[in-house]
């Protein structure tokens, strides 16, 4: 999948954020804002690359974990929220666990992912973003998430359906689904929790604030 992961940030970004920008726009503003929002001490990093060496998916990231820290220090917000990194990250917490400076790298990446999700931008990893959204929608519908219905809703998305038809992964899905069903591992009907009302209220409440 070499074609799917540009190594290093896109050239446009590099030009857009040269040293001169570094000076005129106080780069520290984004840094401070992020530090305050997350309570993460981003400055502490000394770029030892423990996080990147620990990350199981670094190769799929256009901005490697240690660079995420550097970019944040430099105030390169745009590059970050447009990166594949924030979506590919597994939240496996290897980076955070092993950081000698106790920098919560995974927390930072998650914060950036949250930020990107709130903005009207096309996520660099569309399917990953969509999956998360669909998951939350399912949760909103029933209060619990039923794997069968989750997959169904996901695969029903026109673009995804098209792609999966093309690369044959839909067939795989179906045969796996059938296998699981034969073994009684699929629950056909979703359970709707009684408290669904208050959960939906919570959703409305959240959206009330966030837009």
């Amino acid at each position, binding site marked *: 999948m*070499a074609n799917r*992961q540009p*190594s290093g940030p896109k050239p446009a970004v590099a030009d857009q954020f040269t040293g001169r920008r570094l000076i005129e726009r106080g780069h520290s503003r984004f840094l401070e804002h992020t530090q305050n929002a997350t309570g993460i001490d981003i400055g*502490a990093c*000394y770029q*030892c*690359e*423990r*996080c*990147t*060496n*620990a*990350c199981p998916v*670094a*190769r799929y990231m256009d901005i*490697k974990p240690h660079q995420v820290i550097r970019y944040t220090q430099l105030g390169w917000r745009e590059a970050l929220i447009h990166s594949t990194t924030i979506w590919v990250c597994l939240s496996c917490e*290897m980076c955070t666990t*092993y*950081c*000698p*400076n*106790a920098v919560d790298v995974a927390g930072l990446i998650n914060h950036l992912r949250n930020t990107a999700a709130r903005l009207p931008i096309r996520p660099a990893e569309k399917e990953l973003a969509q999956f998360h959204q669909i998951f939350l929608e399912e949760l909103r519908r029933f209060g619990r998430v039923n794997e069968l219905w989750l997959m169904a809703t996901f695969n029903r998305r026109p673009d995804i359906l098209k792609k999966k038809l093309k690369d044959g992964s839909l067939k795989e899905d179906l045969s796996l689904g059938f296998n699981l069903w034969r073994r009684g591992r699929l629950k056909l009907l979703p359970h709707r929790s009684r408290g669904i009302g208050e959960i939906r209220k919570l959703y409305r409440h959240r959206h009330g604030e966030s837009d």
Partner: protein
Amino acid sequence: MKNTAHPHISGKALVVGGGIGGIQCALDLADTGFYVYLLEKSASVGGTMARLDKTFPTNDCSTCMISPKLVQVARHRNIEILTLSRLAALNGEPGNFRVQIEKQPRYVDQEKCIACGACAQKCPQKVPDPFNGGLSMRKAAYLTFPQAVPLKYAIDAQNCLYLTRGKCGLCRRICPTRAIAYDQQPETLELTVGAVVLCTGFELALTRQNGEYGYDRYRNVVSSLQYERMLSATGPYGGHVRRPSDGRTPHRVAWIQCVLSRDPSRNRPFCSAVCCMHAAKQAVLTRQHDPDSQATIYFMDVRAHGKGFDDYIERARAHYGVHYKRSMISQVYLEPDSEALIIETFDHHLNRKVEETYDLVVLSSGFKPSEAFGDLAKRLEIDTNPYGFALTDFQHPVHTSRPGVFVCGATETPKDIPETVIQAGAAAAEAAALVHPARHRDVTSETTPPERALDAEPRIGVFVCHCGSNIAGVVDIEKTVAYAKTLPHVAYADHFLFSCSNDTLQKMEALIRDKRLNRIVVAACSPRTHEPLFQSVLQKAGVNPYLFELASIRDQCS
């Protein structure tokens, strides 16, 4: 000329800790007219330096460097070594402290022990040898290391069958000099000293518990000090680097730097200052031992901030082909079959993880003050920093917060040998400045009888040394002595188990007088360090010290 000024000031000093810092400090004080008690918690002095193989930047043999110093303190008439001892209490004021020393029993009579090693040979109880980082076994009756000072065996009470279960008692039965003394009791000494210097040194922050990089989980992950022992000729593998798991020679060796150093997440945010050079040296030695070997150092910054250190790093890189990788490691993985170790790093050019496989991984562990220092600092009410090192003052870099108590070496900050030796001198200077009115008061100086007039005819005395079994095992002593008697001018010949032991020296002295010997030949071990010892015997017997000859039969025959 006794110094009687300032009677309230004591001309004695107490040096706590028998590592290179303490040894240097003791010598620097004793050589300037003060009497020194050198306190050591273990059975012999030498500290960490005695455990090192070679040292940077000269690659000199560490033992060879420290041994003469060890002999010096051992034979210095104004240094009294108190082993297995701890400073229990300190009262009084600068210039006149009263100190309480708790001395643990050695269970071996130091006067009688001739270090023949019989007790250790026969002792049935094996225990992991702390001197070798647990990589080899020693007996419950033991000598810390071959050049130990004092060169006296000890019995460790935790493991001795007799002391724990009242069984065995073998060593007492076979000891040729009846030196074993199970009934020795702990004693408390009360001393008066003018000044105290703390040189308690350091230990590795890496412990079996905290499991860094699979330490104590994977057999081929070792600490920097363990690897030092593995390199050493006196180490567990006799100087051939072997893997603990299978005894094979490791060809691919990796060092991981800053283990529990520069690590705020473990509340160890400081740098241990010497590990960069230490690792470079070990890598160089590894390449020397085995030219086919591959040495890789994973690091962040090379801290070669000492005189000529960068040059050494450059040689390690260019001349010895040591690989430096500026990349820190999260975790070490085990290859199950070979027990090789896998280190994963992210390769920016390939844009993917690469797995590097090593036969052995060495963890360059950070330092912490030696375990005992924590309580000592509390007892003495001296201030320490958050990491347990002694606090000093900018203008007085060897003063602790308690007047009259000084500090040197890694007790203050992690530092290398030269800086420790320098600081030891400084601590000695401060102590001396405090007690100098009492200089020469508590020391004794050599008094030698007038030399006998030399008879025209040489009357040579030959003393052949068994050196335990070291020589006797190879050379037929009886025959040698008999032969010596036939040689021209030889008036007397005899043999001793250990010529260098105190009682033998006294015998020798008496013989020289009685037999009117005027030339002495001692056939013994080589160390030139022993020549002055025997010369002093001649002097005591009234014979000119230059009428002495040493035949080094231990080196050249046995």
